């Protein structure tokens, strides 16, 4: 960790002791109890998992350049999309914002010195790494080919791949989520600074609170489900086995009871980030604070009663399907509320277009597209046609990549100066954001068309008439990949050579910007006393504090 600050003509804050240079050595990092260091441990880990999951995607898109499969056999293709899904969902998206930005920012934003249970926090990271190692073992010793959804009876009775290892890896990583969610809930409830009432909290905290509710209520169910899956595979008999009266659909109910709320785990924190970015770069108070706050809770709660929309065509009863369909329309409402409020915040704001804002604006557009296409899928009749096709793949990638990943990158860029005390080159960052936006749309928009035209998902071969769209999608993927590599380069440069950032380079509101960059280990010299609402930007001119 470099501590050489090139030029200190500001207050000596930058050369003082901060959480990065307070102690040295591998042990001080591997045994840290500081939430900020744990956040960086997670950041490193999930960057690695993202590369692995991304590699699987690269191989898939290369294979799909030709209708008969250009690269791999169908059996191998099955393993590629399974590994891509498992790693991207459980080992990148679910922990991404919560474990990195959440861990780093929650205590800072609420004016606390750390999370409620720092040792549990560190343990969460070790548990996560163990789970990831288990899945990597599965990948390297034959892979998994059940899809990230592990549907029975294929996964329990017929697959000849490393299903148990993968299931165990996810099971273990689930505990990391549960403990993190628990930690965040207690921290937010019990450790807010004096004057920091619930309705003065930054909306990122509301979003993280809602996410933590889902962590805590949903993850245990996937844990027990995977346990039952592994047991059935081991014992050759179990509760999903039709030979003893079992119902394979029960697995799907239990699986999706978690996995649908899980997709909201993956997007809610991103929405929280966007609330922060939009206000900071419009220099304006959020429009409708309580609506945005309550919509986060609303999304978390309603997300638990819509899971059957993943099972419309798998044999679920029509009546259950009707109920789930109606509720799936309802769940879109709080998301729409947020989009309206962000847009209203932008209106008459003093907008600047730094990289974080580009990511935020991209999010609003792409998330809206992804969300609206979800409505086609929520409608029973259209879902019959679209289920199992590339339409679904495009739908969730618009939300997960166009939404969640862009929010993640926007957040990393926005808080990078706080985390590292360094500035990054914004011109390169804007360029990368643009490349990502273009690459993303070129990759996934053709997939909407492919899906509508009938190309099934999870297929490594396809009818020749789909080739043009597939090639477009693969070309987009290569552009997207370049877009993801560029930040790695300039962030590395910034970490080592970037100019020092002050405490508040963006002139934003929020307690995290009142302390030094990087913050001292104890976060604040003195615990702040909060007297203002969030996003208290001056309404008249641009100057701040």
């Amino acid at each position: 960790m470099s501590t050489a600050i090139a030029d200190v003509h500001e207050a000596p804050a930058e050369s003082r002791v901060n959480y990065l240079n307070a102690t040295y050595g591998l042990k001080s990092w591997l045994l840290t109890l500081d939430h900020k260091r744990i956040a960086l441990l997670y950041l490193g880990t999930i960057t690695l998992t993202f590369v692995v999951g991304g590699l699987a995607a690269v191989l898939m898109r290369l294979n799909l350049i030709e209708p008969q499969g250009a690269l791999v056999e169908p059996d191998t293709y099955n393993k590629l999309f399974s590994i891509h899904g498992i790693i991207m969902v459980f080992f990148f998206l679910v922990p991404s914002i919560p474990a990195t930005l959440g861990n780093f920012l929650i205590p800072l934003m609420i004016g606390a010195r750390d999370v409620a249970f720092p040792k549990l926090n560190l343990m969460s990271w070790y548990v996560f790494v163990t789970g990831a190692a288990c899945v990597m073992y599965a990948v390297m010793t034959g892979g998994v080919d059940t899809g990230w959804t592990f549907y029975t009876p294929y996964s329990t009775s017929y697959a000849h791949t490393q299903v148990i290892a993968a299931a165990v890896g996810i099971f273990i990583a689930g505990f990391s989520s549960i403990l993190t969610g628990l930690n965040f809930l207690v921290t937010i409830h019990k450790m807010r600074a004096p004057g920091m009432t619930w309705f003065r909290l930054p909306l990122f905290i509301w979003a993280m609170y809602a996410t933590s509710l889902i962590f805590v209520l949903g993850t245990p169910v996937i844990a027990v489900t995977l346990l039952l899956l592994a047991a059935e595979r081991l014992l050759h008999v179990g509760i999903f086995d039709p030979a003893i009266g079992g119902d394979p659909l029960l697995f799907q109910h239990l699986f999706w009871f978690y996995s649908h709320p899980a997709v909201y785990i993956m997007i809610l924190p991103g929405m929280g980030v966007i609330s922060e970015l939009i206000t900071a770069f419009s220099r304006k108070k959020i429009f409708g604070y309580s609506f945005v706050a309550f919509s986060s809770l609303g999304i978390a709660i309603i997300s638990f009663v819509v899971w059957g929309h993943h099972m419309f065509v798998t044999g679920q009863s029509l009546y259950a399907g009707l109920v789930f369909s109606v509720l799936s329309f309802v769940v879109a409402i709080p998301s729409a509320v947020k989009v309206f409020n962000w847009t209203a915040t932008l209106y008459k704001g003093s907008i600047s277009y730094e990289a974080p804002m580009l990511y935020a604006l991209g999010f609003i557009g792409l998330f809206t597209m992804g969300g609206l296409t979800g409505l086609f899928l929520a409608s029973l009749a259209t879902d019959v046609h679209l289920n199992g096709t590339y339409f679904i793949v495009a739908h969730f990638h618009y939300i997960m990549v166009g939404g969640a990943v862009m929010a993640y990158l926007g957040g990393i860029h926005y808080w990078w100066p706080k985390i590292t005390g360094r500035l990054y080159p914004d011109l390169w960052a804007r360029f990368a954001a643009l490349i990502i936006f273009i690459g993303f749309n070129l990759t996934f928009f053709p997939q909407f068309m492919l899906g509508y035209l009938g190309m099934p998902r999870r297929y490594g071969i396809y009818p020749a008439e789909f080739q043009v769209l597939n090639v477009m999608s693969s070309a987009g993927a290569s552009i997207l990949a370049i877009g993801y590599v560029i930040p790695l380069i300039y962030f590395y440069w910034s970490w080592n050579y970037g100019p020092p950032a002050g405490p508040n380079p963006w002139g934003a509101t929020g307690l995290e910007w009142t302390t030094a960059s990087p913050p001292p280990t104890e976060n604040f010299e003195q615990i702040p006393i909060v007297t203002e609402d969030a996003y208290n930007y001056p309404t008249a001119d641009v100057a701040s504090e």
Partner: protein
Amino acid sequence: MSGHTEHQEHTAHVVPISTYVGVFVVLLIGTALTTAVAYIDLGRWNTVVALVIAVTKMVFVILFFMHVKYNPGLTRIVIAGAFFWLGIMICFSMADELTRGWEYNPPGWSPGLILPYLFHFLF
């Protein structure tokens, strides 16, 4: 927390041993009752009685052994929330499993009947 002052808080409330023993006796009685009732033919109600007794025992353990009676507020919301969520999981899953065999239309109905019925109902 704003305005937080130190004071003797609720778990300083020491539960008398007699209360613990009383709850203990209630739990034993409940166990004996549920076992005994199993030997009586109440038809469907056997299950109901067993569950009512089990829930009662659970409530006693939660209120007294786990001190929730003396711990109002957030704790109760957490407990209620967890059970409510379990209820969601059970109810919605059952809603599917138990309605798989249902006819698409109730007997005697067809969608074409809706309109005349609506007219009759409204006018």
